[in-house]
């Protein structure tokens, strides 16, 4: 009666060292359906995906493709049309977009690579996805979001039967995400199975037909998505009730802790930006990828040169030409790319906590004992899950790494926190904890926050006031009731504006 699954795993278990990361998981995927796979970081999602696409061999369990038991390896998987778009980008940066799309699978003429055909086919794929990418562009010049799209195109250029995407939307803008979803729907109607891993439950609800929930390496649910709400799914993932992911919004005092006046960056990426941040406020910055939010924040903290404009901290003019000077003025920045800019990954965790504040602790010779004490304080209060202060940072999960970055920033005693995508790649539990830390510090008026995020629910859930940017400048602001989805998206896209012009 039931159709045969195109891909099935039975009793899949996997160990890394001593840790059991997958515990006899049974999953089945049918053709022409979209599967949403959810679970906290460390639940085993990525491991399961890598096993299902042949990049990892499970320690026990069987995999069936079209009903036949198969031992998968990357080549076999490719042959069978199983394609994985991994979480980490795997592009060759100095090559062009079309070269990356066809890397390892170049169409050839008699002897040489058929360049014309490659470019033509690449343009076709790009057109189908309806994104603004030049196939001749060098990949290194693309934004992270666009790189992610190239990675997806690379998968689509192969003959795909089963498309597995691990967190494909993590760095995509809302617009790009919607375009990706259009493509997924097209694939689905042509009978392709799409397996979609995401932290964003809203996306899962939007796109998936079936839901797979993993928790601590075990499958806790597979079945119809039916009418599960985001909260219900989150509860399945976490295994406990979660009343609200976002803490209650807090008010602010009518006192400017930060004021930016007519700021222009020397490279022209930021034009005439003015705004204020109130005491105890959690101010959102929304915009499409490339709108200039990150660039603005980098200009404020002195990483990017400004050509004109003034910055006032607590009403007094501040000159900020480096991160150090920003820190002296009580401003710290949590960078967008945690692994690239947030942490020294090969350091013991405690050394990351104290990295910005060694001057406070010691004159010349370091005092590891004091540093460890400081780390232990944050380990407790932020619930940073580590084996100990000497664990190497790169072995921590994304959520714990982010809390570690936060500990480093809070340790400076700063009053103004600029958080650029604070919960990207962070599991729900840690996400909740990070929100709680923000709201606690803000409500006690111990700090004020700027939250830059492409995650609309996050911005809406956290912020009472949201500033929207487009093309390097501020195009709108929403306060209180106005902070809602369509309003923000319209402002970010500039749609309402063009409609008004159209009316005229």
């Amino acid at each position: 009666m039931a159709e045969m699954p195109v891909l099935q795993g039975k009793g899949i278990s996997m160990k890394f060292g001593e840790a059991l990361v997958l515990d006899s998981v049974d999953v089945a995927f049918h053709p022409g359906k979209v599967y949403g796979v959810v679970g906290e970081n460390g639940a085993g999602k990525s491991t399961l995906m890598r096993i299902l696409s042949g990049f990892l061999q499970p320690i026990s369990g069987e995999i069936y493709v079209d009903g036949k038991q198969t031992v998968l390896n990357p080549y076999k998987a490719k042959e069978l049309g199983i394609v994985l778009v991994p979480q980490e980008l795997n592009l060759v940066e100095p090559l062009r977009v079309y070269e990356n799309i066809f890397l390892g699978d170049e169409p050839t003429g008699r002897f040489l690579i058929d360049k014309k055909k490659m470019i033509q086919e690449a343009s076709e794929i790009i057109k189908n996805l309806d994104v603004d990418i030049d196939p001749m562009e060098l990949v290194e010049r693309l934004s992270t979001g666009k790189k992610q799209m190239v990675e997806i195109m690379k998968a689509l250029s192969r003959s795909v039967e089963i498309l597995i995407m691990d967190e494909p939307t993590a760095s995509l803008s809302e617009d790009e995400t919607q375009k990706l979803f259009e493509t997924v729907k097209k694939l689905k109607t042509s009978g392709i199975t799409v397996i979609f891993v995401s932290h964003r439950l809203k996306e899962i609800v939007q796109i998936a037909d079936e839901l797979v929930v993993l928790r601590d390496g075990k499958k806790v649910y597979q079945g119809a998505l039916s009418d599960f709400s985001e909260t219900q799914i989150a509860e399945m993932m976490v295994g406990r009730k979660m009343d609200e992911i976002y803490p209650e919004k807090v008010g602010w005092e009518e006192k400017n802790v930060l004021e930016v006046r007519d700021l222009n960056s020397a490279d022209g990426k930021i034009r005439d930006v003015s705004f204020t941040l109130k005491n105890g406020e959690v101010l959102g910055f929304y915009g499409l990828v490339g709108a200039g939010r990150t660039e603005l924040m980098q200009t404020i903290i002195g990483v990017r040169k400004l050509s004109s404009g003034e910055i006032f901290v607590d009403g007094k003019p501040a000159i900020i030409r480096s991160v150090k000077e920003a820190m002296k003025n009580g401003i710290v920045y949590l960078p967008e790319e945690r692994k690239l800019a947030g942490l020294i990954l090969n350091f013991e965790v405690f050394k990351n906590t104290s990295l910005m504040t060694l001057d406070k602790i010691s004159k010349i010779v370091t005092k590891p004992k004091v540093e460890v004490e400081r780390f232990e304080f944050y380990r407790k209060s932020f619930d940073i899950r580590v084996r100990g202060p000497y664990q190497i940072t790169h072995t921590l999960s994304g959520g714990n790494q982010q809390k570690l970055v936060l500990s480093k920033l809070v340790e400076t005693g700063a009053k103004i926190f600029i958080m650029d995508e604070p919960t990207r790649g962070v599991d729900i539990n840690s996400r909740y904890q990070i929100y709680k830390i923000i709201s606690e510090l803000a409500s006690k008026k111990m700090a004020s926050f700027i939250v830059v995020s492409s995650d609309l629910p996050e911005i809406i859930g956290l912020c009472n006031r949201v500033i929207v940017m487009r093309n390097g400048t501020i195009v709108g602001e929403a306060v209180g009731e106005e902070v809602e989805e369509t309003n923000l998206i319209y402002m970010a896209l500039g749609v309402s504006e063009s409609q008004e012009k159209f009316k005229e």
Partner: protein
Amino acid sequence: MHLRDVISKYGILFALIVLILVAGILSPAFLKIQNIINIFWQISYIGIIAIGMTFIMIGGGIDLSVGSFMALMGALAIQTVNALGDTVGSVILSILITIAVGALLGAGSGFLVAKGRIPPFVVTLGAMAIYRSLVLNFANGGVYMSRSTKYSSIGMMRILELPVPMIVFLIYVIIASIILERTKFGRYVYAIGANETAALYSAINVDKIRIATYVIGGISVSISAILISSMMGSVSSSSTGNGFELDAIAAAVIGGTSLSGGKGKIVGTFLGALVLGVINNMLVMLNVAVYLQGLVKGLIIISAVFLQNVRRSE
């Protein structure tokens, strides 16, 4: 800990012990105290330079100029003493001048790397050619001879039966270890080498720290230059320091310093230098053809890095 972890962590120590045992069995004279002291003496010149190199490499750089840099500093020290006369004061003054100039030239390389954004390989390759050309030019291709007996006596001096270069080397190892592993500056050196961007965002003055590593490199070269030129009483403009850059990098790499920065220890470099010294000594004692000694050294360097990679890929 798995066996593999133990081997990779203490691998260099194991290698050294095995080498010493093999050498001791093949040639009992090897283990004589005088021979051991000789080994320390021989490696101290390269060793001191390798310590500076370790700072530079952990900070994410490299210095290819150290060989000709050393010849230039040796020549400078000798010419300064010759000009100032054969007194204790002039010897001390010329040593201080040499160290100061070495620090300054190191700062120059560091400045070009940090502020000029020129890859360190290129900057120091250029510096290597420039320094050698200067040394050759002022001596017209010949030799710088020391006319000061006081200066020449330093290099051959012994304290408690131990040669001065060896003592200087051992003290230098201890001081460098403390600076790199116990000070804020040392922490920052690791940070900028491991992840420059993250260091920048953590309010670390990346350029300043990077330049400082090259200053330490320059000081190390000067110290080594003073020791070797005073021992020889001369500097050959064409041959002094030849190949030193490779031996210094080799000592650091064998000792576990990463060519891509952010990783390494002074103790490792010290042991790496010892391994090189023991191999050289052993090959001489075993009458292995001089021309084949490079082959053995090369194999050891490659295997050392191979073993480090095995560990990383786990």
